[in-house]
């Protein structure tokens, strides 16, 4: 029997069904890997018993011929999804010890589909960050190392850094992520795995700790396109508890997977050739173009003229929504309370929020508060929402002449921890290629394209029309089959 923790979700599902191994063996294998990888700090809470209970239920169901779509598959859960009876922190001190009495819709759907939970995965605090360095519970470490003989600890990307690190290190075969401006795609690219942010509204936001409600979307992360399709089918679907949930049937994405791209047009947005783009990223992009042509696609140049305004638009809208969403942390109903001696209610709010939020969260709340404040609202927030309309319109026009877009996922490979921390703006620029699709609510995924000269993974991003997750997954599959990406980090932990 091969090492069970090297298997993909599809291989676990199918091998388990075929009777090659038990679900308990799989869960025990991953539990052991999780326990042995504490140095990566990928998990905030480990839940081996949850994984074992789901495995035992799967083994029993197999005996009775009563299998569910994800029977036998254990996964990691980003600690932004509320899980009943299991601490949910959003990687913040504010929510340390918070134990939801309810289950998020997405996690509940995954458990109902038979999946088990290996633990709650670390992330940037309140999902604000691109390197997983803002977590109250410490940095997540990427399992990857540069091939220069140095031993620099690398960032796994963010905000879904725990998910990325854990999957890449074989601590779980797949995990949930959430993506507000690139938080699934950029970490996936940094560790050489795949991840898809579906169309806004596909996955319910109910029970997901809110960051920026008009941008937040849940999605899967895994090592293969097929695994992403499998997971997404169980995560997506209409939820009356989320007013922005799309009331549409969930397609059978896995069944319809096809890497034959004949008849498809792939657009290359010329504005993504940003100044100072590293030659390796340029070469990766060219390689992606060649792979898609090889799969039968026609490649055309398109224009997204407002691309350069996407990041500043995002950094008005996301903090504005965050300042509003995070107003709920008041020390009254849940989470931390800091009540200095003799403090009144207002003092308690201010002290609680000063103690409970990290520096990046405070920074964004304050930017959001500023751009929404009297006298500035129209100049900043309304203007940003208008530019957002123009950015979405750019995509609509581009999709008149193509079906999909291909771009790099990130402007560089993974950087070392601490390397970009001093300058918030430099960190924000990491999301330059992922933010536009978020602002337009479009499905987008990252798929590994190759390694850079330092031996680190680089990702290619595919952006699709609204609701065309299938087109995105299929193009991802075409790249996956042709890129032949098989690199994995050497186990040093």
């Amino acid at each position, binding site marked *: 029997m091969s090492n069970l923790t090297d298997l993909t979700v599809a291989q676990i599902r199918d091998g388990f069904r075929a009777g090659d191994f038990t679900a308990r063996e799989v869960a025990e294998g991953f539990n052991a890997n999780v326990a042995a990888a504490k140095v990566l700090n990928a998990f905030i809470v480990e839940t081996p018993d949850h994984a074992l209970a789901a495995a035992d239920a799967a083994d029993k169901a197999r005996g009775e011929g009563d299998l569910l779509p994800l029977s036998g598959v254990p996964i990691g859960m980003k600690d932004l999804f509320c899980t009943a009876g299991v601490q949910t922190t959003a990687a913040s001190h504010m929510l340390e010890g918070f*134990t939801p*009495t309810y289950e998020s819709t997405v996690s509940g759907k995954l458990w109902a589909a038979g999946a088990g939970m290996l633990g709650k995965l670390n992330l940037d605090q309140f999902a604000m960050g691109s390197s997983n360095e803002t977590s109250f519970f410490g940095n997540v470490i990427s399992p990857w190392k540069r091939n220069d003989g140095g031993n620099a600890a690398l960032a796994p990307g963010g905000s879904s850094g725990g998910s990325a690190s854990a999957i890449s290190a074989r601590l779980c075969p797949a995990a949930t992520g959430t993506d507000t401006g690139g938080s699934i795609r950029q970490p996936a690219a940094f560790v050489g795995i795949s991840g898809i942010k579906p*169309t*806004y*509204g596909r996955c319910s936001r109910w029970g997901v700790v809110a960051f920026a409600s*008009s941008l937040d979307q849940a999605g899967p992360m895994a090592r293969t396109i097929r695994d992403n399709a499998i997971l997404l089918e169980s995560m997506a679907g209409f939820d*009356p508890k989320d*007013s*922005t949930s*799309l*009331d549409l049937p969930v397609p059978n994405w896995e069944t319809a997977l096809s890497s034959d791209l004949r008849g498809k047009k792939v657009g290359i947005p010329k504005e993504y050739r940003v100044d100072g783009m590293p030659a390796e990223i340029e070469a990766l992009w060219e390689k992606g173009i060649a792979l898609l042509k090889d799969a039968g696609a026609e490649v055309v140049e398109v224009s997204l003229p*407002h691309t350069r*305004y996407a990041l*500043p*638009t995002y*950094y*008005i809208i996301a903090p504005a929504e965050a*300042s509003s969403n995070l*107003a709920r942390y008041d*020390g*009254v*109903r*849940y*989470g*931390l*309370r800091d*009540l200095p001696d003799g*403090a*009144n*209610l*207002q003092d*308690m*709010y*201010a002290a609680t*929020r*000063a103690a409970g939020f990290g520096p990046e969260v*405070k*920074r964004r*709340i*304050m*930017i959001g*508060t*500023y751009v929404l*404040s009297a006298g500035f609202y129209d*100049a*900043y927030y*309304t*203007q*940003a*929402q*208008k*530019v957002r*309309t*123009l950015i*979405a319109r750019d995509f609509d026009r581009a999709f008149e002449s193509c079906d999909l877009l291909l771009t790099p996922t990130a402007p560089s490979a993974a950087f070392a921890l601490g390397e970009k921390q001093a300058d*918030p*703006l430099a960190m924000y620029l990491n999301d330059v290629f992922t933010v536009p699709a978020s*602002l337009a*609510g479009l499905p987008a995924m990252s798929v590994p394209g190759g390694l850079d000269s330092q031996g680190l993974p680089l990702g290619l991003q595919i952006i699709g029309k*609204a609701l065309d997750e299938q087109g995105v997954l299929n193009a991802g599959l075409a790249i996956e089959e042709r890129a032949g990406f098989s690199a994995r980090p050497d186990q040093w932990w």
Partner: protein
Amino acid sequence: MAIDLQTVKKIASLARISVTDGEAEALVPELNNIIGWVEQLGEVDVTGVEPMTAVIPNTLRLRDDVVTDGNVRDKVLANAPQAEHGFFAVPKVIE
């Protein structure tokens, strides 16, 4: 400077985040950098452009005006820092 120390303190107060003088001073250049950078949006011609309200066309649904949940007081209070007699407890607010 668009944002001075006094403005930072005012924003912090609006956001209900207490800041020390040192923290406020450190925030002045940080917030100025970020706000200065996003101000480039001012150069975009948005004549006749409506602000976005929904990324994916969707209509807000109506449902029957009936009670759909409730009777979960203890669950609601389960994570409260201080709950007394079935209520959230806060410092005295009547001056």
